[in-house]
């Protein structure tokens, strides 16, 4: 199995620390009333960053659910810039520019899974070399879309990687109320595809599993379902109070396995990380998210964008409504 080398592990840890640091700032921005609802990444960093580092950004697509964007640093600064627009509620927050192969957040649980299958299938029809990795959670695996798409992908042998991040909680519903199956990975059997469970707190394991799945996909052997087990260390979202339902002893056990702290400790022991490096990365991460946030706040917003991009051009009815809108706020719709 292909393992990440030391250099790669350093890059993975850096991205994980950046994600954790920026998540803290983002949480505070929400608590200060400066951005909308956020789904914190805390506890998912290793699974997300480890998986992404096994992909080729030039050829491979990532279709996130909504918790992942801070972990997609490898795909370029456009991801964070767009994500901050998204958090502000700016329409441009849905448009990650070309050629970045990352789709915007998907709020409908599991709805991107059939998209991933179609995209992977389309890429193979066009003889393109890449794969599609789609993120979803343990809760989303109960949606019909997961089963329909998994089944279709198996039949088509589409080059797709289903990455189910099992963080033990679907808001407040624990996994044993989500499924009676032994594991989420075991559902692969119904699709006739391989399924495996990996330790999602260990980025190297996730990296290896995704690399393996990628090799299968690109060699025409079809999709793989990977379950990465983690523990959600934060709230479901900024609107959630997990103390109502997460047993505190479970949480403190999970905190001992915190993927970021664990890897920092391990890398320091191997002399691949230092406190100085840590502090340098954190400072840069905060500067970077502040910069992205300022840029987002300064992105112009026209009332016209309420009407733009529904169709390629307005219907007669829409253009009447657009005129009404612009007239009602006293602007011309040029």
């Amino acid at each position, binding site marked *: 199995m292909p393992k990440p080398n030391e250099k790669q592990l350093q890059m993975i840890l850096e991205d994980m620390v950046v994600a954790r640091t920026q998540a803290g700032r983002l949480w505070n921005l929400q608590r200060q009333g400066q951005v909308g609802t956020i789904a914190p990444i805390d506890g998912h960093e290793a699974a997300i960053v480890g998986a992404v580092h096994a992909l080729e950004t030039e050829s491979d697509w990532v279709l996130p659910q909504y918790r992942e964007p801070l972990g997609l640093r490898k795909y370029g600064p456009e991801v964070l810039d767009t994500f901050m627009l998204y958090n502000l509620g700016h329409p441009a927050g849905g448009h990650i520019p070309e050629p970045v192969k990352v789709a915007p957040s998907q709020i*409908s649980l599991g709805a991107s899974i059939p*998209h991933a299958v*179609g995209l992977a299938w389309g890429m193979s029809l066009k003889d393109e070399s890449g794969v599609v990795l789609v993120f979803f959670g343990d809760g989303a695996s109960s949606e*019909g879309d997961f089963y329909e798409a998994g089944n279709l992908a198996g039949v088509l042998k589409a080059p797709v990687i289903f990455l189910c991040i099992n963080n033990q909680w679907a808001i407040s519903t624990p996994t044993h109320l989500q499924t009676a199956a032994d594991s989420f990975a075991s559902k692969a059997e119904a699709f006739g595809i391989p399924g495996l469970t990996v330790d999602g707190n260990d980025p190297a394991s996730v990296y290896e599993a995704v690399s393996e799945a990628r090799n299968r996909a690109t060699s025409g052997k079809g999709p793989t379902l990977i379950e990465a087990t983690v523990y959600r260390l934060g709230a479901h979202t900024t609107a959630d109070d997990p103390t109502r339902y997460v047993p505190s002893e479970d949480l403190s056990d999970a905190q001992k396995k915190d993927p970021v702290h664990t890897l920092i400790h391990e890398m320091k022991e191997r002399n691949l990380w230092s406190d100085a490096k840590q502090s340098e990365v954190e400072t840069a991460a905060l500067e970077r998210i502040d910069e992205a946030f300022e840029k987002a706040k300064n992105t112009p917003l026209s009332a016209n964008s309420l009407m733009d*991009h529904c169709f390629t051009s307005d219907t007669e*009815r829409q253009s009447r409504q657009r005129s009404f809108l612009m007239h009602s706020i006293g602007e011309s719709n040029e």
Partner: protein
Amino acid sequence: MSEKVSELSMLEAINETLHSEMARDERIVVLGEDVGRNGGVFRATEGLIEKFGENRVVDTPISEAAIAGSAVGLAMAGLVPVAEIQFLGFSYQAMHQIAGQIARLRYRTQSRFEPQITIRAPFGGGVRTPELHSDSLEAQFANIPGLKIVLPATASDAKGLLTSAIRDPDPVLFLEPLRGYRGIRDLVPDEEHAIPLGEANLVKKGDDIVIISWSYQVELSKRVAESLEEDGVSVAVLDLRSIVPLDVEALTQIVAHCGRAVVVQEAPETGGFASEIIATINDECFWSLEAPVARVSGFDVPYPVGMLENLYVPDEARIRAAVLKTMEEE
């Protein structure tokens, strides 16, 4: 100039269009249940798999959500999916993908992704199908911004509109009347034939009253109009062809000209698209009306079983009665 035409059924016209469009644009992929080896349960896709192969004509599992959902991915990959939902009543299983994903894709990604997707689905009553095969759901889709809804009433229009639907960069729901597949035959141009979406067709001129309709009900409306002509009533018939986009100008012109109008739909009365038409008339040409605009609709019940079907689906007698009643209004 005379262009060559052939008399075809609507089904043959659709099949011919799929053949010619697939030959023209190799990005087109046809997917759906039984569309390949079987050529479609109505034979709409007959011969495609033989000509274009299994990669481009794909028999999918029985998975409406995956058909619609994977069409999104195919479009993201730069292909042009032409998906078939075997009966429109089963689009409910795909509704979250059609309404929540396909229709919003362009808007929510600010055109990063372009949903050039056509979804074909047969619908409509009068052929004694099992449950959920006949429902007219067009108004439900019309309430979903981002989706175009095209409903041909003739074989020739089926070719012209399907051609434009497939080529349209926006998602199009293309609804084919079950009763018209073999029941409607007319002259179809042999050559390439594309009718712009959003242009209604005044299929019959008239001065006293206009019947406004779409899909198979246009056929019935024409018959009523012709029979009333013998009674000295000059009845126009407007075929909307698409309800999104709606040809407001053509609608307004003919209603203002006649001053009286009847809207015919097969769907249940409450919340049907006929109501939207009447609201549009109210907005655009209320002062030209000489009588309240009437609606002929199905009833506000689920589409019934076979023995009750004839009571449910609007027929010529019901349309005729509505026209005459509207003519009597002062």
